[in-house]
């Protein structure tokens, strides 16, 4: 009877946590889903059903479309830059350099800092300064001062430009001819101010990618590389054809982790710029929070939250399932 009593103990120990996750993760998600279908647009809950009206309302708003654009742009630049820098640094550090520990710590410490602190500091560093006007010369500040840039053309977080394929571009006509004219809309472009946020986010997260890659590099048997060297492979070829393919699972993990962070990014934009000029740095997370908790439009806020959840689940669920399979095989 001993075993069965231990079995009961084990289930009793884990039950509260399972219950908590069931209620606070799955239960509350279901409740949010329900709220997204009701009217509730004042401080007082109003559970009058409205169907999909909240979803129609948010997708009809230009701001939300901008948010989706920003999320896509942010995700692409953030992942590309973090992976490139992380992989580069890991490769450099793995070459038996002096003071390896010191360099590694310098690259990783931003992970220990909150996005709010990161945002406050980078906002200050990126303040552009006064452009020249009617006789007074320009007074560049921050990075502009450091690199001698003109504050008039380098506005950083306050830049309202969106780079898109305009009528002047040679691609404009071609895209219209092949039926892809919608790509030339200003709603599908790269807001310049958003890149400043990417800069701060990459500063914070690239060290983490380096750590992942470094662990991967150190798991690759030296004999493998040595054998290739004996066969006359150049270092680049070894990296391209042996090392990099072996790092694929790490690249995938890093992309998923960075990707789900960028879909949720909130603190950093709040601290740096809020919605930014012309919603250039707005994100779905910010839109959700302001809609629900500032404007008391809880039904719509819930709809935004559910859209975010679907986006995140779209990349995380396959990853978890894949992980689970791997474990079963192992």
């Amino acid at each position, binding site marked *: 009877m001993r*075993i069965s009593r*231990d*079995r009961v*103990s084990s*289930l009793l*120990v*884990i039950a509260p*946590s399972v219950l*908590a*996750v069931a209620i606070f993760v*799955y239960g*509350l998600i279901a*409740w*949010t889903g329900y*709220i997204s279908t009701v009217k509730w647009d004042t401080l007082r*809950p109003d559970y009058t059903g409205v169907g999909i009206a909240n979803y129609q309302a948010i997708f009809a708003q230009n701001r939300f479309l901008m948010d989706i654009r920003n999320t896509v742009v942010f995700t692409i630049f953030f992942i590309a830059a973090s992976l490139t820098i992380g992989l580069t*640094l890991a490769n450099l550090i793995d070459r038996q350099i*002096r003071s*390896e*520990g010191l360099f590694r*710590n*310098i690259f*990783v410490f931003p992970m*220990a*800092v*909150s*996005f*709010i602190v*990161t945002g*406050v*500091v980078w906002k*200050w560093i990126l303040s552009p300064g006064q452009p020249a006007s009617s006789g007074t010369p320009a007074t*560049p500040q921050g990075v502009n*001062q*450091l690199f001698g840039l003109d504050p008039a053309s380098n506005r950083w977080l306050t830049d309202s430009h969106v780079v898109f394929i305009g009528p002047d571009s040679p691609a404009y006509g071609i895209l219209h001819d092949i039926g892809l004219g919608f790509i030339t809309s200003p709603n599908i472009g790269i807001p310049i101010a958003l890149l400043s946020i990417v800069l701060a986010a990459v*500063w914070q997260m690239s060290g983490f990618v380096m*750590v992942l890659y470094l*662990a*991967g590099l150190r798991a*690759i048997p*030296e004999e493998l590389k040595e054998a290739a060297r004996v066969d006359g492979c150049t270092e680049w070829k070894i990296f391209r054809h042996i090392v990099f393919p072996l790092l694929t*699972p790490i690249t995938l*993990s890093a992309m998923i982790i960075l990707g789900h962070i960028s*879909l949720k990014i*909130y603190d950093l934009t709040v*601290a740096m710029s809020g919605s930014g000029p012309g919603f250039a740095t707005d994100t779905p997370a910010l839109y*959700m*929070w302001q809609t*629900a*908790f500032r404007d008391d439009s*809880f039904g719509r806020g*819930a709809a935004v*939250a559910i859209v975010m*959840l679907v986006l995140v689940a779209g990349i995380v669920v396959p*990853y*978890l*399932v894949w992980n*689970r399979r*791997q*474990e079963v095989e192992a």
Partner: protein
Amino acid sequence: MSRKNDPKRVDAAGEPQASDAAVESQSVPQAPPVRGAALSDVFAARKIDPLDMVVRTEEEEQATRVRVRSDSGSRGAHSRGPRARILRFFLYAILFVFALWYLTPIYILLVTSLKPSSAVRLDQMWTLPWPPSLDGFFAAWNALGPNFLNSLKLAIPAAIISSMLGSMNGYVLAKWKFRGADTLFTLILFGMFIPYQAILIPLTQVMSNVGLYGSIQGLILVHVIYGIPITTLIFRNYYAAIPTELLEAAKVDGASFFRIYRSILLPLSASGFVVVLIWQFNSVWNDFLFAATLTTQPNWPMTVALNNLAGSFVVDWNVQMAGALLAAMPTLLVFVVLGRYFVRGLLAGSLKG
């Protein structure tokens, strides 16, 4: 590369503790493989714990240094020609440039926060603070001191409770698997990826219904609940590496579920607890979303108060930077002192399963 499978490297913490050494001597011949991790196929073949690889002991650092030094004398022409030397120079140059980039915000934080308000001008951002002044810090402490204490009152209990819970859960899910335990674990894991916006509205309702809205206790509870996935994950992997035979033997001797935990698992858990405590302390200290939504002014933790301070146009930049430095100080301090455990947490958090 002997460092890769040197048995001495088993202890990832680098400071072999009696408890860890005990496991080794019992029956772990080499580092425990992390089960079913996404990267396991890469690592499993080498029978190494990926957590160990980044974290090298002082001894090994020393060994590398010695090796590098002797290399420069004896390696011979093939790698020490002028070309190799130029490459080496560029290697350090690139690392140095990146290091400057990573350290720029720290430099700015320090020089700005140490300037008196009169010397804080935007066009003098990069100059050294001379003479340095602590006015910024006094002003920042006046404004943020209570919130700093709030953050401590929040993060310390939350981290402790979370890690105890995670340890028990990890024990069950690693060593007392029941039918469907792995599926349940995957379902729990999902909770750490969700955008918290998807639960925030009903969560505020629940918190006000139970009378915890606005309080630090309520926020502790929230962090403990949403910390369950990550703490369970780390401990489950940690305990999976402890040989099951050890537990079987104890069971044969009549030890109960709790007795096994107390006498075998817990004494071996020291470095696991350090990793999880650091992880949770960091995430709770640095959290903004929950705190901004669920607390009100006198109970604001540091991040919310700092954001509010920085958002106001009447606060001098030296005060803002001093405030930011105060907000970053505890987690940075933990990183400096226990960095290797921090890195272990980073890796553990990214390797699922």
